[in-house]
């Protein structure tokens, strides 16, 4: 059963157009001119109950605009959408009781108070009765492992702990669908892993449908089975994560620090980006070469002190999708 159904959703913003410089500003003040920006272009998709879907794209692609329309914050210019059977912008308050949202860069917690106080306030906003709230708080504290710091003022929490509290705050009312907008933004590797683990548990244990946007290819690879890629307001790929992984998330940048100077280095299966006596940075494409193969070459020629692997940037993935021959970048059935 589909919990989100989107058909031909379209959003156009009217923005003020101004020529550069002071003259442009004066002219715009006297005779303002407007131009139209298409933020979301006729998109259609459906999300099934219990799915963990990644909705990804570079900055300005239309991700947040789509989420804002699906949560009822923004009205669309054209098209229809239903979330849990409700039209979001017509039944926003009713819908708010059954969905949750976390905007990674905007906090819903009180900065100077312990998260527990924010949770109680949210309990009252969602009209959860006292005993139910206490029970739910116990569940959420256990699920998100918050016991250690739930009574600490939010300002004293690490970013990772704060994000755990943010997500916990958004599920107090047992939403059936949750929109997570960049939940791992700014987090270190360990905190990212923890958040991913918790999102997965939320999806598995509470059967919550998760609509996730992220810049982080790791979030998508490790969490989602299906991915929708949006760019310039259009859906350019709707496919399974395994398809994306095998076909697009294939480049890796590897940084290597040598234990002893290594002035000469030849790698046959990688593209060297930078090489000094102290280290080397190279790109490999896992579609054609395995990391082990390249590392084998490397170990044969140098003493290695440290290795780190970077995942491809979202912009690179998008470029790659566009770069493929026609047909390959079109919609694929999610598997």
């Amino acid at each position: 059963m589909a919990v989100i159904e989107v058909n031909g959703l379209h959003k156009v913003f009217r923005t003020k157009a101004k020529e550069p410089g002071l003259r442009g500003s004066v002219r715009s003040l006297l005779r303002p001119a407007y131009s139209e920006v298409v933020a979301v272009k006729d998109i259609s998709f459906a999300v099934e109950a219990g799915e963990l879907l990644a909705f990804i794209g570079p900055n300005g692609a239309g991700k947040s605009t789509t989420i804002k329309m699906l949560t009822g914050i923004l009205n669309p210019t054209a098209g229809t959408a239903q979330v849990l059977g409700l039209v979001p912008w017509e039944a926003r308050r009713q819908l708010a009781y059954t969905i949750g949202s976390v905007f990674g860069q905007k906090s819903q917690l009180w900065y100077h108070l312990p998260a527990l106080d924010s949770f109680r306030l949210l309990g009252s906003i969602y009209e959860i009765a006292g005993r139910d709230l206490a029970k739910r708080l116990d569940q959420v504290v256990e699920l998100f492992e918050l016991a250690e710091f739930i009574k600490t003022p939010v300002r004293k929490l690490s970013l990772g702990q704060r994000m755990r509290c943010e997500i916990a705050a958004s599920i107090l009312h047992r939403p059936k669908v949750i929109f997570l907008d960049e939940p791992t933004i700014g987090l270190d590797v360990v905190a990212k892993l923890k958040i991913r683990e918790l999102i997965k548990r939320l999806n598995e244990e509470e059967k919550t449908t998760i609509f996730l946007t992220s810049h982080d290819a790791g979030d998508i690879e490790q969490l989602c089975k299906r991915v929708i890629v949006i760019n310039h307001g259009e859906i350019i790929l709707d496919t399974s994560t395994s398809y994306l992984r095998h076909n697009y998330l294939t480049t890796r940048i590897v940084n290597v620090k040598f234990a002893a100077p290594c002035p000469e280095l030849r790698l046959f299966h990688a593209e060297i980006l930078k090489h000094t006596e102290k280290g080397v940075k190279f790109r490999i494409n896992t579609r054609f070469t395995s990391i082990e193969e390249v590392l084998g070459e490397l170990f044969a020629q140098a003493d290695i002190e440290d290795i780190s692997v970077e995942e491809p940037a979202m912009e690179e993935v998008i470029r790659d999708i566009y770069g493929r021959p026609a047909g390959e970048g079109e919609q694929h059935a999610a598997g």
Partner: protein
Amino acid sequence: MFTEAKRVVRFVFQYFSANLQSAMEYRGAFLSQVVFMFLNNLMLLFFWWVLFTQIESLNGWSFEHVMLLYAVASGAYACQALLFGGSFSLSRAVAEGRLDFYLALPKPVLLHVLISRSSASAWGDLAFSLVIFALTTAPSPGQLLGFLILILAGGVVTTSFAVLAHSLSFWLGHSEQLAGQLTEALLTFSLYPEGIFSATTRLVLYTAIPAGFVSYLPVRILKDFGLAHVGMLLVFALGLAVAARLVFYRGLRRYESGNLVVINALD
């Protein structure tokens, strides 16, 4: 309806309590803000005292009238700042797209934004208001209750006026400064005796800048109680609140369209 009213009161109280707890996290800052606001108000009143040592009355207004005026005006302002502190930064919330947060929650957006903040220093205003009222009137519990109703009505007037002024940002974009000037004008006029103004100015002060309903009319009620005046005040406060709500939600439609001049609509 009674259950709904109870729910709203509980909701307002919980925000009020969270704001108070948040302010008290910094004990020193909280107490000093309260004390200094009290002293600041006292200093303003001191200038009037100096003036009234030179003259007996100002177009029928004595120093006692002015004390009542200060008690009522600072009380009304305290009600606004303590209960509906979000009204001071409403245009900024619009300009920064912060209404998104309230739109995503199942509570009335305007009420939610208004109660979301509370000013700690306003406890100094409230204390000042009650102390000055007690000094001028030596009130009975009934009179005290009446006074609280008057300042609450005044607070509804100042809050509604602020909502109207700040809602301009839905149409004008960044109009925080303009809204600030308008609300400041209301406060300033509320702190001067009605007697010094001409009939035309008074007309303005009972309509466009409703200082008359924040302080002059309440002072008149306190000095010379009349049900008609109480009725006028309550009807005006309610009417202005309804108008403010209407204008805000009309503006909110522009916000929901994403076409506000100030909004960076794209992600």
